[in-house]
């Protein structure tokens, strides 16, 4: 797997879009729509755009619900960076609650989930399944940062 840090943007600032979203569920749809508008213009297929929409919605929802704990005073920052190779999406929260990194390695099993009270836990797994590269780190704000990369097929 290549390091997404190496997929540098081409220096064209018009290919960087930054959103500052309120920590309120529903605003993830603004990020989804921005992602799909950008990906369509870059030439991604319909199937890949749909995968990106789902991955972005899960990342932003996680940031709202878990990272920022629905605190309306906190923002979720989403940065889309287009390059000739693909699209990098960074999602950062302000870290009221830091991510438990064991969650990032978990593969949920529907047989177990059916017998559990908690039916959730699919979000991060879906992001990893749908995107080409995913990295978890600490944002400059001290919160959680998730970077996902989707490559253009050439």
């Amino acid at each position, binding site marked *: 797997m290549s390091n997404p840090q190496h997929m540098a943007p081409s220096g064209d600032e018009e290919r960087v879009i930054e959103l500052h979203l309120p920590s*309120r*569920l*529903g*605003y*993830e*749809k*603004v990020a*989804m729509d921005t992602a799909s508008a950008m990906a369509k213009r870059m030439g991604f297929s319909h*199937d890949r755009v*749909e*995968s990106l929409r*789902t991955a972005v*919605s*899960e990342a932003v*929802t996680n940031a709202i619900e878990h990272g920022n704990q629905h605190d309306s005073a906190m923002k979720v920052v989403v940065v889309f960076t287009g390059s000739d190779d693909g699209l990098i999406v960074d999602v950062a929260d302000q870290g009221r609650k830091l991510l438990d990194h064991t969650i990032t390695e978990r593969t*949920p*099993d*529907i*047989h177990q*989930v*059916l*017998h559990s009270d908690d*039916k*959730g*836990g*699919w*979000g991060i797994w*879906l992001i990893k*399944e749908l995107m080409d590269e995913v990295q978890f780190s600490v944002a400059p704000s001290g919160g959680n940062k998730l970077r996902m990369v989707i490559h253009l097929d050439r």
Partner: protein
Amino acid sequence: MIDDELKVTTRQRDGIWIIDLEGDVTTFAEEAITGAYEGVTKEGAKYIIINSRQSDYINSAGIAILIGVVTEVNRQAQKLAISGLSPHFQKIFRMVGLAQYADIFATEEEAIAAMQRHQQAAVESAQ
């Protein structure tokens, strides 16, 4: 503008109960979907189709709600099918493993036909 809107309605067709979903299937959908499922179960539903109409946003919280329905369907020995999903969400539902517990069809008509076959097989095995 930002709020999720989901319209959930139920209807019966040839002895099969259909729960129609129109809109976003997210965490806000739990009460409406669970309520509709409980409603048709009270009516004695054995064959249930969850039919997605124009739901182009289903997230992991929505998937968790549907897994909750599957859990109850198994307990109640009902048969569940899901129809009307876009190819993307059909793929997601298969990835998650929901297809092991609920047959997934592109259209309501295909789901109805499959449920009728299950009904017929149940009648024949009871004879």
